């Protein structure tokens, strides 16, 4: 039966169905370490698949791989279309997902009741499945369905912080309501587009839209555009629609914060890429419509406002959460420039921020694991007690700042380059640079507390976090340093993605 089966041609769908089936089977893994080990295995396999897929995409002559589900022609059925952009995001999501799963074991053991670990990891793996699915699909409605899978799982995962702090519940509910409104807007936007085009396939939709006479004054298309932008803004926590994010990331279980910060909003941004560039096309989104202005203003305001807010936080996780909103601002600012370097910077920052922020949330989680809280007071003097954890945190922080030889620098380089190249967009460059100063300010509060102040209370007695937490943390931080020193891989991929996104424009 298996002789006709080959892995490589089926990679796009394997990336999604493996975690789907694996996630369901997680429930059957009983108690103890079984579910965790299984989830690790599944995410590891998925990661391997994404690596293979990346190779395939790079080798493909057309620059993309198309997979027609059920073998139906793509305009009628559902198509998976993987180009450099989504292969890269898939790699990011699966990679970070895998490492976070490795990390999760200890902190989940402590934060989630023992008797529902199997359900927890099932939801966990399904969340990754949903995120990967959004990334790989080429069908507008399929995006919505998978978006809802990832959202539902994320609501549940966030709410699982309830045993540590009851605010996890309100955070989750608020996210649920805003997220559903956002998703509904997206659904509505897709509906409007479908009304005009009669199709759901993204490429097809683009062709049909391009064929419309006088699209710029087509009121249905305009409203669809606006509502998609709003919905996506909510989903990717674009300032000022980010209200749900800080609380959710702060009170979610540590492992969940690490996973979400690295993947969930990134996939939101990926959707924005697809809708703005692939469906509407650069010409419509950024030339005919003032999307670049709206997005860059929102992003710049986000960078500044949330940067200042982050400086004022005492809770490390909340600080990181605000910082995440700011960093998303970088990404949005990058693609709102709509030139090659800006978009490439934005793509590469998706990856870079995922590894850096994932690693930092892991470090905050390790502190939570040892101390039960992670505020500035409790981390006093921790530089000596938990040297590896704090070093990871600081290294990640330097990345956020954008110090050279960290991954953050690469993104910043591209972004500033893009901003200088775009006409009249130099204020974006200025904001990007000022934003990194704000990052210095909030990172340095931690450095000062951890290294230059004397420990008090229980933090004088703690020891380094267990290896199973420190190792994954350093894998991500190490990646952020590695890709800061040698960014040829990430740089080339993102340039390629940027060129294909911009090249597809009418």
């Amino acid at each position, binding site marked *: 039966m298996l002789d006709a089966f080959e892995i490589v041609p089926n990679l796009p769908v394997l990336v999604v169905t493996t975690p789907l089936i694996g996630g369901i089977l997680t429930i059957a893994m009983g108690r103890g370490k079984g579910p965790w080990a299984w989830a690790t295995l599944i995410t590891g396999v998925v990661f391997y698949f994404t690596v293979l897929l990346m190779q395939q995409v790079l080798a493909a002559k057309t620059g993309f791989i198309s997979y027609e589900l059920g073998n139906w022609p793509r305009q009628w059925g559902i198509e998976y279309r993987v180009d450099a952009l989504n292969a890269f995001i898939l790699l990011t999501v699966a990679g970070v997902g895998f490492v976070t799963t490795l990390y999760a074991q200890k902190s989940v053991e402590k934060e989630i009741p023992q008797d529902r670990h199997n359900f927890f990891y099932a939801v966990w793996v399904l969340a990754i499945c949903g995120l990967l699915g959004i990334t790989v699909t080429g069908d507008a409605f399929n995006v919505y369905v998978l978006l809802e899978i990832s959202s539902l799982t994320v609501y549940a995962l966030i709410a699982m912080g309830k045993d540590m702090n009851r605010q996890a519940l309100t955070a989750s509910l608020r996210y649920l309501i805003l997220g559903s409104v956002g998703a509904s807007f997206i659904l509505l936007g897709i509906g409007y587009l479908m009304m005009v085009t009669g199709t759901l396939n993204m490429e097809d939709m683009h062709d049909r839209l391009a064929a419309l006479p006088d699209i710029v004054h087509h009121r249905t298309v305009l409203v669809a555009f606006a509502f998609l932008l709003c919905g996506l803004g909510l989903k990717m926590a674009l300032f000022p629609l980010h209200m749900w994010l800080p609380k959710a990331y702060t009170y979610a279980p540590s492992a969940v914060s690490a996973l979400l910060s690295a993947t969930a909003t990134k996939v939101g941004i990926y959707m924005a890429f697809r809708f703005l560039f692939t469906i509407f096309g650069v010409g419509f989104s950024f030339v005919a419509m003032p999307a670049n202005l709206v997005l860059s203003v929102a992003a710049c305001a986000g960078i500044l406002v949330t940067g200042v807010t982050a400086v004022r936080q005492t809770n490390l996780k909340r600080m990181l959460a605000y910082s995440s909103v700011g960093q998303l601002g970088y990404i949005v600012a990058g693609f709102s420039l709509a030139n090659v370097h800006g978009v490439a910077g934005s793509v590469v920052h998706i990856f870079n921020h995922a590894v850096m922020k994932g690693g930092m949330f892991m470090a905050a989680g390790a502190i939570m694991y040892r101390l039960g809280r992670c505020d500035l007071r409790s981390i006093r003097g921790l530089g000596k007690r938990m040297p590896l954890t704090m070093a990871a945190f600081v290294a990640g922080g*330097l990345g956020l*700042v*954008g*110090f*050279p*030889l960290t991954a953050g620098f*690469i993104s*910043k*380089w*591209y972004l*500033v*380059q893009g901003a*200088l*190249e775009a006409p009249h967009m130099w204020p974006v*460059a*200025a904001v990007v*640079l*000022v934003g*990194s*100063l704000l990052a*210095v300010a909030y990172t*340095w509060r931690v450095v*000062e507390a951890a*290294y*230059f*102040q*004397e420990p008090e209370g229980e933090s004088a007695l703690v020891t380094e976090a267990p290896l199973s937490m420190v190792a994954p943390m350093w894998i991500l931080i190490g990646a952020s340093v590695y890709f*800061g*020193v*040698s*960014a*040829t891989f990430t*740089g*080339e991929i993102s*340039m390629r993605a940027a060129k294909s996104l911009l090249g597809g424009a009418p």
Partner: protein
Amino acid sequence: MIHFDVSPQLLALYIPLLGALLISLAGRWPNLRELVTLLTAGVLLYVVAGMAPAVLADGFWASFAKAPGLKLAEVLPGVWLELKVEPLGMLFALIASSLWILNSIYSIGYMRGNHEKNQTRFYVCFALAIASVMGLAFAGNLFTLFVFYEALTLTTYPLVAHKGSAEAIRSARTYLGILVVTSVCFLLAGIIGTYVFTGGDMTFRPGGVFRRALADGSLTAPTLGILFVLYMYGIGKAALMPVHRWLPAAMVAPTPVSALLHAVAVVKAGVFTVLKVIVYVFGPAVLVRYGVGDWLIYVAGATILIASCIALFQDNLKRRLAYSTVSQLSYVIIAAALLSPLSITAAALHIAAHAFGKITLFFAAGSIYTAAHKTEISQLDGIGRRMPITMAAFTIGSLSMIGLPPTAGFVSKWYLLQATWETDAPFVLVVVILSTLLNAAYFLPIVYRAFFVAEAKPHHEPHQSSADGNFGDHGDHHGHDAHDHGEAPWPVVVALSCTALATIVFFFYSDLAIGLANQLRSGLP
């Protein structure tokens, strides 16, 4: 990705890094740790000095322009981490590595004498800072320069905040804040701007990188001017007013740090970068032609005078030295801004000359603090009798600052005056003369006090130093009696004697430095 090529400039980078690793491993055994520090410093000097003959050789310059740099890693497509030896960097590396040995000896005495905490961190960060300095000195392109520039800021931050007191942390914030703000907002913007306008060319080369862009009109004079401003204010380490405030703030650090880093390595890194940008990125010829750098003379001149005036009113010895440093740094900048071959030589020489003098002064200040726990100038009455060697060295350093023969300061000032004459810049002449007078006015009274004013009555003295709180209260409980002290521990005395001697020797045997500076000049079109 990374080439493990054993070339000397790479070794110069790796040796301090390896040293830092070994020091951290040897952290538990202080003697071993300090031995490792000394050994590392020695080996580094050996390696760096070994490169000098090649740079001084005839025809070096011709080959320099063509020779590819040593490429370490491709950070972005087309952007390499690249090392390349050139005369200016050679000079800088020589100064830093030779003074590191003396400073290490000094540190041993100082840190032990003052019972400082976290000594291992101190030595590790020191070695890392030296590694950054080496990278900076041998940087082959703007990007590499920026990388090590930022690395230097980061590695010196823990040294400034070393004490961990609220005061230290706040000062360290100022330090980091100003240096990072300037470098990120201006310098990085300038570098990326350069990258954009030159189409990805950031390699240091004689005559600068902008000529083609200027020729084909993609870069206009106003933009060039903006870029120049970005660079000059981006290099915060050069302490051009008004971004000089980090330097006095950094004085909370232990004295060895102030001595080597904030008199030599870090601040010199700043002016070194300025010089390198002017010579290799813009090119003096371009700057002269487009006239975008003229303002720098006035700003630097103002900095010299204002900083000197501020120094005049400082009672804290280290702060006075710090403001003196601010003003001396602008000597280098003003010399560079004159844009003549001779003035460039003067700038390069002043980097070296000032280093020897200023480190001596800081050593002396630290020596006084270690032995007598005095930090204020007003407390120094008659101290010359108790600490004759220290104060003698201090006197030599002061003379060098003023620029009197037979000290190092005279050599560079002589070249500067020559350059002033040559380029017909009366403003600079006035500044130099006024500044020399001011230098004398704030250094000589200290010497006078130390040697010719009688010591005050002992009962005024106790706990004076702990009351001011600046430098902690260590030592008061360790058997030092404030009014019954002699010289500082012997490593301190040895170190400061050596540097004082070097200041004088530089006057007589400055061939090496002048040779390197001339190499630099010979390359200018």
